[in-house]
């Protein structure tokens, strides 16, 4: 693997006698979204504060592109810190400054840009984060979600190479939580920065993360992909399983990925060898553009409504669904074969095109003038109990995906 952007080697930090970070080893790679998970008070924020230089380790080394921070010259350290932005858990906005002034502050104080250039840059960021109308408001006049967006805009305005997000979704409802995560993912792709997040939003945060770091009792107990994390065996996992199992009311209102996995494993174990089952995979295509057009909150509302619609339709034939990735849903049909599933899918596609998409957009309160055309793709694949791995069936369903419905703005108008 490449040289890590940030590497901790045996980093220890003590407060009085208590070691908050205990011999921590970790790697953060460039251009990725890395999420740090762990219980409250396990030192996640302390870890981030070491990266940004607000704290220094008592023992151990922090490396930036292989170079120890402690051995950097003053100018090298300044260059390093100038590449990082930090988004605080409580936003840390300047409450006596307006939104515009908050976002402009780092540019005014650390660059030689002209007043006009600063204004243009700040206005552009405010537009991208849907804050244009709040420019002259004070943070106390904004909702929690808007304050987050101001903090995000301020973090983005200096075009950093790395942004550290300390629990960016705390205190938000499920739609806004996913909207913030989706916004982070979108900007991460758009601007190419390295993102490091602290989040409790399992599994929502997995959909946008490339790597997961699990911190428990001051130590890193897991480093790897979200998929690898799902197979991770550790007592720590049990606590997270509990939270994951309780996710029915989360974004889509349908089952979590883990519940889905457990249920389809149970379904398969009850089947006789060679008995068939079907997997259907649905994709809301152009989801990022949709979010950009409608705003992240409304984009998540559309996704939410689509998930509920799929679940309702396929629940009638014994199917159960789960969100599979950021913009994908999977439905497991334990009692169907391919022919039957294709027939059900055809009915579903007809209903979706005829009234479903309108209902979804109405539920998400998408104004007619903001209508955005996007397609829904779907594919089904059949598997057999005792046959090939279910993952292969998913892959086949993915390959078979084709457009089944599309929002037509002309019709809405």
């Amino acid at each position, binding site marked *: 693997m490449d040289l890590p952007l940030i590497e901790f080697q045996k980093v220890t930090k003590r407060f009085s006698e208590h070691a908050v970070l205990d011999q921590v080893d970790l790697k953060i790679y460039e251009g990725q979204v890395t999420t740090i998970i762990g219980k409250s008070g396990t030192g996640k924020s302390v870890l981030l504060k070491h990266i*940004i*230089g*607000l704290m220094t380790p008592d023992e151990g080394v922090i490396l930036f592109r292989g170079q120890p921070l402690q051995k950097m010259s003053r100018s090298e350290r*300044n260059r390093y*810190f*100038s590449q*990082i*932005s*930090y988004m*605080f858990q*409580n936003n*840390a*906005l*300047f*409450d*006596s400054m307006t939104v515009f002034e908050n976002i402009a*502050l*780092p540019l*005014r*104080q*650390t660059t030689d840009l002209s007043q006009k250039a600063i204004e243009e840059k700040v206005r552009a960021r405010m537009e991208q984060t849907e804050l244009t109308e709040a420019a002259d408001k004070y943070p106390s006049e904004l909702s929690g979600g808007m304050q987050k967006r101001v903090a995000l805009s301020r973090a983005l305005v*200096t075009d950093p190479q790395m942004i550290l997000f300390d629990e960016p979704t705390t205190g938000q409802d499920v739609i806004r939580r996913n909207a913030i995560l989706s916004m982070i993912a979108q900007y991460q792709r758009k601007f190419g920065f390295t993102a490091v997040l602290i989040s409790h939003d399992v599994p929502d945060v997995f959909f946008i993360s490339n790597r997961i770091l699990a911190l428990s009792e001051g130590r890193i107990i897991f480093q790897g992909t979200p998929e690898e994390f799902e197979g991770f065996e550790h007592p720590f996992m049990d606590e997270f399983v509990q939270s994951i199992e309780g996710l029915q009311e989360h974004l889509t209102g349908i089952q979590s990925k883990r519940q889905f996995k457990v249920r389809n494993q149970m379904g398969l174990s009850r089947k006789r060898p060679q008995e068939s089952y079907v997997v259907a995979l649905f994709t809301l295509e152009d989801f990022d553009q949709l979010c950009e057009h409608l705003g992240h909150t409304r984009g998540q509302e559309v996704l939410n409504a689509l998930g509920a619609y799929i679940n309702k339709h396929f629940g009638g034939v014994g199917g159960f669904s789960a969100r599979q990735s950021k913009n994908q849903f999977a439905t497991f049909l334990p009692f169907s074969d391919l022919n039957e599933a294709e027939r059900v899918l055809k009915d579903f596609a007809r209903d979706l095109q005829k009234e479903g998409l309108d209902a979804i957009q109405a539920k998400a309160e998408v104004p007619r003038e903001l209508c955005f055309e996007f397609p829904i793709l779907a594919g089904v694949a059949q598997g057999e109990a005792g046959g090939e791995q279910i993952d292969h069936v998913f892959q086949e369903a993915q390959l078979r995906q084709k457009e089944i419905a599309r929002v037509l703005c002309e019709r809405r108008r």
Partner: protein
Amino acid sequence: MNGQTSFTSPFVYLGRKALTLVSEMGAMALFLIRGFSMIFRPRQLPVIIQHVYYIGARSATIVMLVGLFTGMVLGLQLFHTLVKFGSAGVLGSAVALSLIRELGPVLTAIMITARAGSSMAAEIGIQRISEQIDALHTMRIDPLRYLVSPRIAASVISFPLLTALFDLIGILGGYISGVVLLGLNDGTYFYRVQSSVEMADIVGGFVKSVVFAVIVSTLCCFQGFFTHTRTDSYGAKAVGLSTTSAVVLSCVLILVADYVVTSFFL
């Protein structure tokens, strides 16, 4: 052993207090040096002007009001005292010298401490506990440069100007009570003011006001800046206590410094 402990404990306590005091004074001196050295960095002027407005312009009304009544009370008291000695004619000298040498700089500094010093401590304290100062660090903005230096500079500019205003209005107050209300000759009053006040008196008063400006701004900013290190309280309560400490210590140090500076000039 116990007897020994109870015997030595007051000394241990005093020693600990003395060490804390020395260490805090050292920290404050470094704080002042760093804060002062950053006044002339780029991008400071607009922020300094902003603080001159808050510390100076917005304190003008209260300073004028206090100056007026101080002058009036002085005029009233001194007139009745001087009449007993048949020297009512020197009322102008007595009022002007008292105000320019002592009361002007001291009362102005105390008034600004109450109005602007407390707000400096509270504002910086709140910024500390709400992580706004940490946010400045992460944006590579030195909090001392951005928050403290402009306040020190603005205080050094505002204190002498407000002191001059206080003196002027105070002399006018003395005129109102001595001349308008008690019937002293107005020519005598102003002649005495003009003849008795020397440049050294005015310079002395201004030196005092600059010294007070440095003391008040440094102390108030220091108390707010290190609110989070208080061991007696946390959060909003710590901000409250920091503000109280800032005001009380500033007032005490103003009087101590007044004595020290006066002893140099006399």
